[in-house]
């Protein structure tokens, strides 16, 4: 007689007894389940936290190292190079012609970076393909003039509030690009949780809104920036 037949013949009570007798076994199974749960949880949590950002962003080195500190010391403030044009538009990253106002095709210093600049770009009259850390997407209209050349204190922000102390840097850090969106990592912020400590740590819409709420009491309307 097979085990199944025995079970059938012994009736349901037997079955219930067996079931009760099996409980300690099940406990062991649950324990193993918990271990598996915790293991998987830990691995996925840590991967999501530590590995995922590495996969999400691709790193690019700048064409050559740029020393902001040296340039601010030599040329003055940020606006010496990142200036407003006559019509109020912001020039952004200087083009080769702007660099050539001070530089020549002969390197001024003796760093390897300046040699690259002189040989690869100045001599060939090629624009330097800088990666722009703070580049906002095309769907965002942002006026530097409105934030910096206003008449009251609200409209006279300094560069650092959004861009951080980049003027004090001596090296160019790698540019990280989000593989999915093509955005610079600086927009979301270095912290993958999106936590910011300084005003310049993130440049997302909510960060604009936070400041606008603080300054204007209102976070602004869609078409102010999404024209």
């Amino acid at each position: 007689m097979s085990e199944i037949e025995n079970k059938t013949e012994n009736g349901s009570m037997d079955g219930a007894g067996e079931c009760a007798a099996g409980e300690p076994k099940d406990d062991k199974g649950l324990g193993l389940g918990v271990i598996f749960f915790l293991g998987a949880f830990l691995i996925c949590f840590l991967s999501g936290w530590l590995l995922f950002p590495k996969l999400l962003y691709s790193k690019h080195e700048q064409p050559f190292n740029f020393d902001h500190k040296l340039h601010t010391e030599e040329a003055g403030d940020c606006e010496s190079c990142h200036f407003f044009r006559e019509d109020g538009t912001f020039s952004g990253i200087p083009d080769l012609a702007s660099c050539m106002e001070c530089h020549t095709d002969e390197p001024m210093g003796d760093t390897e970076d300046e040699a690259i600049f002189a040989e690869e770009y100045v001599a060939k009259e090629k624009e330097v393909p800088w990666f722009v850390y703070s580049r906002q997407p095309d769907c965002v209209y942002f006026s530097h003039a409105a934030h910096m050349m206003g008449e009251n204190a609200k409209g006279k922000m300094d560069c650092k509030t959004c861009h951080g102390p980049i003027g004090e840097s001596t090296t160019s850090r790698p540019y990280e690009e989000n593989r999915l969106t093509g955005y610079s990592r600086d927009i979301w912020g270095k912290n993958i949780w999106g936590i910011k400590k300084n005003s310049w740590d993130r440049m997302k819409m909510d960060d604009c809104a936070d400041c606008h709420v603080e300054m204007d009491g209102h976070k602004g309307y869609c078409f102010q920036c999404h024209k």
Partner: protein
Amino acid sequence: MKIDRRSFLGLGLGAAAGIAVSPVGVKLTDDSSIWTQNWPWTPVPEDGEISYENSVCSLCPGSCGISVRKIKNRPVKIEGLDEYPVNDGGICLHGIAGLQYLYDPARVKSPMRKNGDRFEPISWDEAISLVSGKLADVRDSGAPHTLGLISGGAGGSVTALFKRFLDAFGSPNVYAMPSLEDNLSLTAATLHGAGNTIGFDLENADLVLSFGAGLIEGWGSPMACFKANSARRDRHAKLYQIEPRLSNTAANADRWIPIKPGTEADLALGLCAVLLKKNLFTPGEFFGGFNRFAAVVQKEYAPEKVEAVTGVKAADIEKLAVAFAKAKMPVAVPGKGRGDHGQNLKEFAAVQTLNALAGRLNKEGGAFVMNPDSYLAFPEASMDDAAEAGAGQEKSVGSVNELVDTLNASAKPVLNALFVYNANPCYTLRDTKRVKEAFKKVPFVVSFSSFMDETAMASDVILPASTFLERLEDVPTGGGLAKTVVGLTRPMVNPIFDTKNPGDALILLAQAMGGTIAESCAWDTYDECLEEVAGDIWDALSEDGYAVVSEGAPMGTPGTDFSFLASNPASVQAGGNGDLLLVPIDNIRLAGTAPASTPFAVKTVSDRVLSGTDIVVEINPETAKGLKDCGYAVLITSQGKARVKVNFNEGIMPGVIGMVKGLGHTFDNPYVAGKGVNVNDLIGPVIEPGSGMDAAFGIKATLSKA
């Protein structure tokens, strides 16, 4: 220890929980939503410094001033130029969309040579030596007069340079495409003496009697007309529109006077008859049989007779004539639609005679008989014997339409070589099959087109022209404007493709030919040539971007020669057979001549004009027996037939079918070609004796259910 189902459940739940509390979820949700807002294939224009540069649009004879917005030196927007004496900030949709011509899919990207049925790209050096070699053969064969030129657009130094080239070559065979400018010049020559043209002071007139002139449909200098028309109400001026169809201009007018197509001349002469009969005319320097004219019109164009022909009531004709005579500053304006194709001298002369009889010549708000004294001062051309012989010869025929007929009729080639500049006769002239046949009769056709249009396809070599945004050129206003302004078209961008200013191509050709031809075109570049020949106005042109050559009413009152109208020339009748009459319609949204419309312009056309790829014809429901509104029909004329859609329109006279001009292109541009039919395929030319004008205002046709 046994791994069972629960272990796997634990694993799965653990993984899910681990990911859920890690940043992956929130970050990917955010990123994927951003990704959908920034499709990677959406082009993002480059950012950079914004600048504005002024230039002049030369797409039509309007010659409007434009301001080109550039970002990082790349033109991104065309706007009307404020305070420019023609358009004062206004601009039409063709001008706005002008940038599309730069990147048009049909652009000829380098010189081309036809090899069998296909074109192959060649270098400029090869092209110039090929063309100059062929031209040398023509000249050496002792028949330099067999080089011809068909050009569109009347003025400017590039056209003048073409004529100079032909002069030095020894050929008088220069032909212009039908244009309002030429029609007005011919009218002025007939009535007021050669060398004149006519301008209409629409800005100041208090009653504009328009004989079908599409004042807001692209007639004359379109923006100047738009501006004058918009200011009409403020000035308390009136517009009476005489036209078979309730066009935009008619709808905008104070009065629409429906008239049977092609009878405008009869109405104008009928009005003259009333003025003469009621002694409401202003005597002037009238000669050439004024009395005979007065007798003829009062007899042949008495209001009752004119009513029978035109459909306008005799009483209305009388009232209209009186209103015209009694107005303070009336002006009568000829030229149905855009006033270029399908016009006749009788009508133009009759309308201008109305101005003369009302004493409106050279008066503010009237018709100005202007002497378009050429501002161009070319140095004397060097002529050798062949050139002298050519200069003494008569042109083979009078007009471009007659040229086409002569080419077709003759067994021997009438022309051995032909230049085509700024024109698309294989599309624009009536009965395009006839024109294409004629082109086959010319052994060597050189096109200077920017686009691979119907005529470029029918040529043997193409020397591609840079567009108006890529070249320097002087562009004088034309088309009935009451002032003459010369604008300077400046290059807004370096040529996108391997093209040249046609002036430069011509100078290269002349230099390759050598001899007196080279001496006559002894400039290194066209830009140098322009600076020299623009003479007195060059400083103004280069500094201000324009020069006003004449403004305001000219001095004195010109005489009027009545001999042409006194002979009572016959009215042109529509050809073909059928119980309906097909007439072309000019629509501001579509270019009827070269260059073809931009993709943008075609997209703005109503689906009551173009429905998908079907052309829509207008017909009055009264005459649309058995047809359905928006249904298909077959339109048949003696020239051909077309499948069309029907639009019932009570604003068109019964018995008339209206079909828009400017569709049915057949060249390689998916956004413009292959849409609708070309009305010129369905209408044959009717040459007016004497003037040589193609006077076919329409053609008899039938329309039946498809």
